[in-house]
C-alpha cells in the first residue's frame, strides 16, 4: 500500500510547482498579497487554497457581506492548478484523488504540491488566456489582468532547468515522505 501511494505522488514530481508560479506572480504584480501568500507556505495545496478563499461566518454586527476579496493569488492558483491537472500528470484523477487526500490526512502526511509539467508554446498561450479571462471575471481591471496573464506566461515559458529558477518549495514532501520506513 505504502509504496503505491508514494509512487502515485511521485508522478506529479516533474515541472514547476503551481505555488511557485503563484509566488512569482504575486511578488511583482500584487505585492500587497505577499504576506498572505507567505503564510500559505507551510500548508498543503488544499489548505492553502482554503486560506486564500476563507470567508467569515459570524455576521452579527458585521457590515453584512460575506463577499470575499478577489486575490490575484487565488485567481492564478486556481487557473494554473486547473491547467496542471488537465494537462499534466494528475489528469484523470477524480474521486480517487479526493479519497487519497483523505487517507493522507488520516496518516497526517502532507501532499506533494501540484506541479505543472513542461508545456508546449500553444498550451502556455492557452493558460495565459485563461488567466486573463479569470482575472476579468474576478472584476480586476484590464491593465492588471493583462499584466498578471503576461507574468504567468513568462513564468511558464522559462525552461525548468533555467539557473535562476527559485528552488525549494518550502514544503518538503519528497524528503519527508521518503524518510518513512
Amino acid at each position, binding site marked *: 500500500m505504502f509504496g503505491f501511494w508514494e509512487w502515485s505522488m511521485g508522478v506529479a514530481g516533474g515541472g514547476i510547482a503551481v505555488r511557485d508560479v503563484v509566488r512569482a506572480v504575486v511578488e511583482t504584480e*500584487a505585492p*500587497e*498579497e*505577499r*504576506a*498572505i501568500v507567505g503564510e500559505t507556505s507551510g500548508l498543503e495545496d488544499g489548505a492553502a487554497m482554503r*486560506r*486564500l*478563499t*476563507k*470567508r*467569515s461566518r*459570524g*455576521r*452579527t*454586527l*458585521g*457590515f*453584512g*457581506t*460575506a*463577499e*470575499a*476579496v478577489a*486575490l490575484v493569488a487565488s485567481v492564478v492558483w486556481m487557473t494554473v492548478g486547473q491547467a496542471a491537472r488537465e494537462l499534466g500528470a494528475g489528469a484523470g484523477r477524480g474521486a480517487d484523488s479526493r479519497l487519497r487526500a483523505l487517507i493522507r490526512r488520516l496518516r497526517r502526511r502532507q501532499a506533494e504540491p501540484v506541479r505543472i509539467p513542461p508545456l508546449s508554446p500553444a498550451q502556455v498561450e492557452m493558460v495565459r488566456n485563461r488567466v486573463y479571462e479569470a482575472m476579468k471575471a474576478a*472584476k*480586476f*481591471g*484590464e*491593465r*492588471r489582468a493583462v499584466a498578471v496573464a503576461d507574468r504567468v506566461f513568462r513564468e511558464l515559458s522559462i525552461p525548468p532547468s533555467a539557473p535562476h529558477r527559485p528552488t525549494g518549495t518550502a514544503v518538503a514532501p519528497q524528503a519527508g515522505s521518503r524518510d518513512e520506513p
Partner: protein
Amino acid sequence: MPAGTNARFALLLVLVLVSSARMCLDFSFPKTASRITECMLAAGADLTHPVDSATLIARTTQWYAYTACENRYAPPPPWWLTLGWPLLILLVAVLLFHADRRWKSREGRVTPLERYADGSADRVVKSLLRDAGLEGKAKLVYDASLSKSAMVFGSTRNPVLCLNRGLLVAFSQNTDRRAEDADRPTGEELLKGVVLHELAHIRYGDVTAARATIAVWRAFLLLALIPYLIWCVLLVLHGSAWTIWSTAGPIDNRALIATLALLALGYLARCDILRSREIYADLDAVRRGASTTIWKPLQRDTNPGPPAPGRRLATSFVQLWSTHPRWNLRNEALDDNRQLFLVQAVPVFLSGVAAALVYTNIEYFIEAYGQDGNWLTSAWAVQGASAFAAALVTVVVAVALWRAAAHRALTDPDRMPTGVRTGLWLGAGLVIGDLDSGQGTIDQLWPTRPEFLLAAVFAAVGFAWWTTQCARLWLARWRGRRLWPAMLPCLAGGLLLLSWWFFWWSEDGEAYAAGWYISPGESRAILLYTYAGPVVHSTVLTVTTWIQPTLSPLVLPAVDLLAVAGVWLAPLLAWMLRRSHEQARPWAYALDGAQDAWQTEGTDLPSLRTPMIIAAGGAVSSWAAVVGVQVFMHSSQPATPRLYGIYELTYWTLLFLAQLLPVVVVALLVSLQPGPYRLARTLIAAEAAALAGFAGLAALVSADGCISPLNTLETTCAWRPSLIPWGLHMQLDGVLVVGAVVSFLAAGLAATPAATPGLLRRVRGRTPRHISQQAAIASPRLPAARLTGPGLAVLALLASLGAAAAGIVEQWPRQISGQNIAAVQSDYRTAVTTTTQQAPPWEKAEQVRYWSELGGSAYITRFTADLQEMERRISADPTYPALPAEITSVCEDLRTMGGQAAAYFTVPDLQAQASWAAFVGETRAGAATCMSGLAEIRAKQYTEALPTMDSSFQSFSGATESGRAVTARINAVEAAGGDY
C-alpha cells in the same frame, strides 16, 4: 425618541425567562402526572373521551376538591426551583456574554492591527476612530477571513473592532479599477465605509444589545429549549406514565409542537433585534463621510419592475431569518430614511406572541402555586400578569406607532397611518401566542371553538387604531420640544386598555374558545340561590341571567375604570391643548433623522361641539330613562321592599339598561358624523354621556323615597347614598366599559367603508394615492366652541378619576382577598347540573376507586370511628351531666368532617352520589344537633336536650346506613368494571 431595540431585547428576555420557568414546571409533571390523572378520575372526568367543556364543568363544580387533591397528591415543584431556573439561565447568559469576547479575540484567531503589513490601513482606521471619539476605547484586530467586511464584538463599553483581512487586502489592492467602473468603490472607500458602519454600531450602543441577545438565546437553547425538546420527543416516542389515557397524547404532541414554534419564534426575535440596527449604522456611516458606492455593487436585485408576488413573498420570508436587511432595502434607505419610521410587522407580531405567552404562563404559575385564599389567587395577581404583558406590547407597538405617526405628520400629513395593519399583525401574534401556550384548551390539541380566538384580533386592531388616533391628535396640537410628555397619556391609556383586555381574555374570554357557554337556566338558579325574595319581574330576571354572566367578568379586572378613563381622557386632553398658529414643530428634533425634511401644514382638530351636544342629549335621556324605571318599579313596589334581594336585582338591571341604551345611541350618532378622529370623538361623547348619566342616577337613587311616584326601595324620604354601592359595579363600571366597547364597535363599523379601499390597495399593490382629501373636505368646519374649554377637561378628569377611585375603593376588599374557592364551588354546584358522562364500565370503576382512595372512603371510616368512640365514651359514663365533657370533641370532629366531606368530589356514580349526599347531609345535621344538644345540657335544660340528642343520634344512624350504601355501591361498580 427610542427606536425600540432595547424594548425588543426586553421582549426576548421576558419570553425566555417566562418560557423557561414554565418548562421547569412541566419537567416535574411526569412525576406527578399519574396523580393528577387520579384526581381527574375522582372528579369524574371522562379521560377516554376528553371534551374540554365537560372537563371544565367537572373541575369548576368541584374546584375546591380538585385543587385540594392536586395540592395534596401532585404538588408543583418548590417555588424556588421554578424561579431559580430562569435565574440560572440569566447567569449562564452573563457568563456566555463575557466568554464570547475572550473566545473571539483569542490569540491565533485574531491579530492586532498594528502587525498588519500595510501600516497605512492601521493609520486610516485609527484616524476614523479618533474622529469618532473612540480612540483608545476600541481594540483593533484583524482575522484571517477574506470577506470584505468587519465586525464588532465585546461590549459597547469595551468593544473589539475586528476587520476581516479581505477588507485590508482590498484596501491595499489599490485603485486601478476606478477608471473603468466608476460605481465600484476603491479599497479606501470600502475600508472607511465599513469601519464607519461598525463605529456607528459602537456609538449607538448596539454591541452590548446584540451580544446580549445572542448570549441569552444560547443560554436558553442550552439550558431550556433543547433539554425540553428532547424530553418532549422522548414522551411522544416512548409515552409517559400516563399515556394509558388518551388525554395525554395531545398534550405531549402539543408540547412538542409548541416548543418547536417557540424555537422558531425566538430565533425570529433574535434576528429581528440584530437586523434592526443595521440601517441606522448605514445612515450614520454616510453622515460621517462614507461613500455610498460601497452599498451599490451589493444590490443584487437589479430588476427595475415590481417582482412577482410569490417571489416577493419568498424574499420577505428569507429576509426574516437573516441578520441584515436586504441590500436594495439598505440602498433605498440611504436616499430616503422613511422606512426607519415605518412600523415593522415582525416586532409587532412577536410582541403579540410574547404577550400571550407571558400572561398565559404567569397565570399557569398562579394556578399551580395559588392555594386556597393565598395572595396569588387574588384578582391583583392576575391583573399584575396582564399589566406586565400589556406593558411589553405598549413599549414595542405603541412607541413604534407614535414614531410612524410623528414622522408622517412632518413629512406627509395627508397620508397619516391608521394603525389597522399594525393591529392585524399584533392580533395575529396574540392568536399564535394563545395557540402556542394552549389558551382555550385543556386536554385537547386545538380549541373546541377556535373562532373565538379572533376576538384577540379585534382587540389588537382596536388598540392600534386608538393609539394611532391618540398620537395624531396630540401631534396636531403639541408644540413642546420633547415628545414623551405627549406620548405619556396615550401610552398609559393603551397600557390600561390592554391590561383590562388580557385580564378578561385569560380569565374568562378564552373559556368560550374551550367550549364554555352562557347558560341562562343555570345563571337563574345561581341568582335565585344567592339572592332572597320573591320574583317580581320574571322577564327582567331572564334578561339579568344574560347580562350578569357577560358583564361581571368584563368589570372584574381591577383596572377597568382606569382603562376607560384613559381611553377617553387621553384624546380629550389633546383637544384641551392650546391651539398654536405656528407651523414649527419643536419636537421634530426629538425624532432622530427626521428634522432635516418636513413640509408640514397640518390641519387643526375638528370641533367637539356636535359630539358634546349629542352627549348632553344622551345624558338627559338617561336621566329620563332612570325616572321611567323608577316609575315602573314603583308600580310593583312591595309594602316593605327587601334590600339586596331579587327585587332590587331586577331594579338594578333595568337601571343598567336605562343608562346603557342612551350611551349606545350617542355612540352610534357620533360615529356616523363624518370627519377625522371618529373613534376619539365617539369615545369622548359616549363616556361623557355615561358619566353624566351616572351622576343623575346616583342623585335619583340616593333620593329614593322622597318623590312618591318614584319610590322603589324606600318609602320614607331621606338622602341615602348608601343605596348606591350595591349596584355600583354594574352601573358605573358596567355602563362605562360596555359604552367604550360599543364606541369601538360603532366607530369601527362606521369607519370601515373608508378604511377598506386603503387596506385593499395595500394588499393588491403598493401604488400610493392621496386619499385623505375626501376626508379633509368632509371634516366639519364648525366654529370653535366654548363648550370645549379647559373647564370641561378638568371636569371630565375629576369625574372620571373620581369614578375610578370610587370603583376601586368599593372593590378593594374583594380584589385583595384571595378567592374563597370553597364558596365558588358551592355556588357552581347549586346551579350546574353535571351531566353524567357515558364512561365505559372499566373507567367508571377507576373513577369510583380513585374517588374512594383519594378521600371518599377515609371520610366514611372517620365517621364510623368517631361514632364508635362516641359509643365507647357514653357507655363509660352514661349520665347526662357527663356527656358534654365526654363527647364534645367527637361531635366537633364530626362537624368538621361533615364540612370537609361536603366540599369533596361528588361520587362519579349517580346512585352512590345519592347515598353520599345523604351521608354528608345527615352527618352535618347530626353534628349540628349534637352540638346544640350539648349546649342545652351545659345550660342544664335537660328536658329540651333529650329530644335534641335523640334526633342527633337518629341522624347519625341514618348517616351510617348511607355510608354503608355508598361503600356497597362503589364495590359493586368496581366489581362491574372487572380487573383493570
